[in-house]
């Protein structure tokens, strides 16, 4: 529905832990017209430059708390508020090289009154600064 807006522009960056780059992150919006409880997020499929990211390397940070995709499935209280970006982090030692990258995000959202998951998807070229 709002596929175009699910990846926040200019939000790609590498993630450091101490002196190590342990992955990369970008910000994403809930791709439905309203907020959803995290348990309704079935999958967040991420591809970088055409290569799918393993599911277990993806996490979402909402309101300061970070969830793996499996942990989200049993979170029945916390919501991904509409219009409030959350952070998608991908664990990847060394992160991404500086420069442009094609980031593809597909959000599989389980909506009670739709027969199959609502799946907004977009690909955007985002740049990691040096």
């Amino acid at each position: 529905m709002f596929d175009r807006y699910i990846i926040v522009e200019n939000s790609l960056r590498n993630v450091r832990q101490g002196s190590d780059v342990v992955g990369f992150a970008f910000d994403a919006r809930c791709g439905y017209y309203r907020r959803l409880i995290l348990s309704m997020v079935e999958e967040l499929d991420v591809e970088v430059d055409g290569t799918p990211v393993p599911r277990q390397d993806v996490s979402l940070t909402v309101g300061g708390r970070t969830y793996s995709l499996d942990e989200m499935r049993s979170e029945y209280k916390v919501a991904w508020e509409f219009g409030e970006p959350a952070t998608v982090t991908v664990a990847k030692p060394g992160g991404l090289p500086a420069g442009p990258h094609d980031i593809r995000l597909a959000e599989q959202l389980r909506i009670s009154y739709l027969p199959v998951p609502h799946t907004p998807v977009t690909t955007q070229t985002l740049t990691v600064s040096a």
Partner: protein
Amino acid sequence: MTSTPLLGTTLYSFTNEWVSARYTLTELLEHVAAAGIGPGVELVGFQSIRNFPRLETAFIDEFHETVDRLGLVPTSLAANIDIAIRRDRDLTTEERVDYTAPQIEAARLLGFPVVRIQIGADPATLERLVPYAEKAGVRLGMEIHAPEGPLTPKVEAVSRVYDRIDSDLLGFIPDFSSTMHRISAGLAQTYLESGLPADLLPELQRIWAADGGQGERLGQFIALAESRGVPAATASVVASAFTMNGHERPEDWAELMPRIFHVHAKFYDIDENGEEPSIDYFRNLGPILEAGFAGSISSEWEAHSWTPNDELDTAALIRRQHDLMRRVIAKVSR
């Protein structure tokens, strides 16, 4: 003929403005008032209110202060029952009631006289919600949206439940997406952008307008597309035409009177003649008015799904749609 419906707007029409955080709720209400597309105002709780249905006192006070200051009139609070919160099972009746009752209470606290509920509210849940509605002094309006229509079996089943429960707090909210005469041109354009060959659009329109269930007609179209060498995956992009745009008979809305107390005046575009090219407002709104409808009407613009943010002119479009509705009202009043 004394029907004088209250025109207004649902803030859902401003979904793109929300997604890009262009306005706070108070600023958006100010925008609606300044644009003259009230006085009625509807909102989706889970869209417009953070942490809904939990409301902080300061939020409640600011909402009341804002609508009073602007001369706006809260009409309908759109609730949702997410029965599929869990992967392993649907919510029980008890859980559905627990999920919805606070939304009904939120309507009372904010001064909304109607709570929009959806067809997912099954009979057992509906029956259990009536005492909450009575206590809160609000009415529960079940939205009828495509692919359902005024007289489709699911809606007739709800009517029978209403007959049995026999409470004047229970009613319907027609959404004109159910009763269109063609697929919205903007929606069709998105299919071309997704790779559907343009010569299939007239075929899509023809199959869409024919008889048969939505799944059946979609299947017919995909089979036709495949016979012309278009992969099913490409052709199935049109599924939303069958779920978002219905072609039930508009005049049948009047059959639901006097149980209609609010209307979602769905629209996508207003042409140079002031008409909605895919929804006949005279056939949709006219018969309801003639049957005595004097409730509230929310303009619900849904082309935001495919309209780029920098081309948004939501309030101006809604003003033109209000003009169209005023023409229908004037014609019926004559």
